[in-house]
């Protein structure tokens, strides 16, 4: 637990798919996690470890199994549907297409995002004041998007779209930001730009963040806390002090120690070669 007070608590959160069939999969197995306010937690783990399921349960795509409980700022949100939970939790997806609407303009996308979790009425969605705000949040990206408010989002590159998705996820300052392998599909250069933008925004807004990644170096470089998932459990949870001294090899040792298995995930090893 960090020095800060708790922002989100997961207690006994499990998720079983295809329950009762021969293909039954336990994607989350009694996960306990206490996320402190302003924590920036990185989550690593191999394919099928439960990382995305964890984010889906936190953002309310589906509820956990009976007995599991999720509280945010002390409020029980376990049974709250995805769109109701959006007030507290926002998410940037792996695919830039998931977080933005292609056939709408940058301005329209941001107008939708600025009302996150609020009730919507029959007011015209955007005005001069909004446009000024949008320009001011887009300008620091250095991508020139602030001069292209009326451009269709479908005409932007993947990196530009993901940067916009990041702005859309953070513009209304949600309690919790979920980054779901959000740079995995970008080329190495754009990848680094978007990651640095993410860190900049998270630090500036003091946003509590959970970042899922396949890249161990990213997991080590960013955030104040590192967790590793395996077979639906969080098997490693390392806090700030210890984290800064860690290397990739230390992580592999920690994994082998915690899981009792030899570390043999080629995809994680291979990904260490990029940035």
């Amino acid at each position: 637990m960090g020095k800060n007070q708790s922002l989100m608590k997961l207690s006994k959160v499990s998720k079983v798919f295809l329950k009762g069939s021969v293909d039954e999969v336990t994607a989350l197995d009694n996960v306990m996690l206490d996320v402190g306010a302003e924590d920036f937690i990185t989550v690593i783990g191999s394919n099928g470890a439960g990382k995305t399921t964890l984010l889906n349960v936190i953002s309310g795509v589906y509820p956990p199994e009976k007995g599991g409980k999720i509280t945010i700022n002390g409020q029980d949100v376990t049974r709250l549907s995805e769109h109701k939970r959006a007030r507290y939790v926002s998410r940037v997806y792996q695919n830039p297409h998931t977080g933005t609407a292609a056939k709408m303009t940058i301005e329209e996308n941001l107008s939708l995002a600025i009302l996150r979790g609020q009730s919507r009425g029959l007011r015209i969605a955007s005005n001069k004041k909004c446009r000024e705000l949008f320009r001011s949040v887009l300008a620091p990206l250095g991508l020139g998007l602030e001069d292209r408010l009326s451009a269709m989002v479908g005409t932007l590159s993947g990196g530009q779209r993901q940067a916009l998705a990041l702005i859309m996820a953070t513009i209304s300052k949600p309690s919790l930001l979920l980054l779901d392998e959000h740079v995995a599909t970008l080329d190495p250069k754009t990848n680094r730009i978007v990651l640095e933008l993410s860190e900049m925004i998270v630090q500036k807004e003091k946003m509590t963040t959970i970042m899922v990644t396949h890249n161990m170096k990213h997991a080590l470089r960013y955030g104040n806390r590192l967790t590793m998932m395996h077979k639906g459990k969080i098997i490693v949870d390392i806090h700030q002090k210890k984290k800064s001294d860690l290397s990739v090899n230390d992580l592999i040792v920690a994994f082998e120690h915690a899981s009792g298995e030899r570390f043999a995930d080629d995809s994680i090893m291979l990904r260490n070669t990029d940035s």
Partner: protein
Amino acid sequence: MDYVINLLSVSLYEGLAYGFVTLGVYITFRVLAFPDLTVDGSFPLGGAVAATLIVGGVNPWLATLVAFIAGICAGLATSLLNTKLRINALLAGILMMVSLYSINLAIMGRSNVSVLREVTVFKQTAQLFGIEPTTTLSIIFMVVLAIVILGILNWFLRTEIGLALRATGDNGQMVRGLGVSTDTTTIIGVSLSNGLVALAGGLIAQKQGFSDVGMGIGMIVMGLASVIIGERLFRPRGVTTILFAVIGGSLVYRLFLGIALRLGLPPNNLKLITALLVIIALAIPYIQKKVRGEWMPPAARM
């Protein structure tokens, strides 16, 4: 010359009236990406409600308004089947379309109701200005109504709710992630769409002098044809131009239809020709890619 003027004026009038059907089809198919087939039932529903009420002595304006509301209810039923009972959108529309056939017969008590001798909105407007109910008057009537409805839609699609509606068809996952229930936006959109379609049905019934239970057959294909013509011809960009292009598509479609009929096309072949038009328009992108040797994914089944 009279011949041409007559052709143009009828196309203008009908193009605007059926333009409301086209707007409805545009809202479901394009804005919401919800292929709604309720249209074939909600169009005659509007006619049935308006005609039956007018024959019963109700003020034609009120009767037309009730027709609009009846269409909203039909759309509401379809969207509830889809969002609350999770029935596939196409199937939900077909179920409502079939149900409406019986409902429309029940409303009218028989397969058609005449309003030829009744006071319609057109006759009442003429009376109001102390003139004869001519075609010119009904054109002016429709132009005014079209401007009002386009104005309202143009405003609505720019509001906070309207924006969420448009994003629903574009990226529903994102909309939910931003805190809007896509169930709600779907219900609003499909209801509004069928309200417009039923309004058109009510107006057409009053203009042609009767409501018939079969008057909705092929309405969805006609609406789609008009939307496609509008999009291909005017290449719109942005909400306002899209709305005008959709109405424009309906006008062009009616004009072509009028010309074809006058050149001796048997009216019985109309629906076949319209269907062929839509098939060609939908197949062109695939054929173009095939010619260029590009790959295209198989068509969706559901």
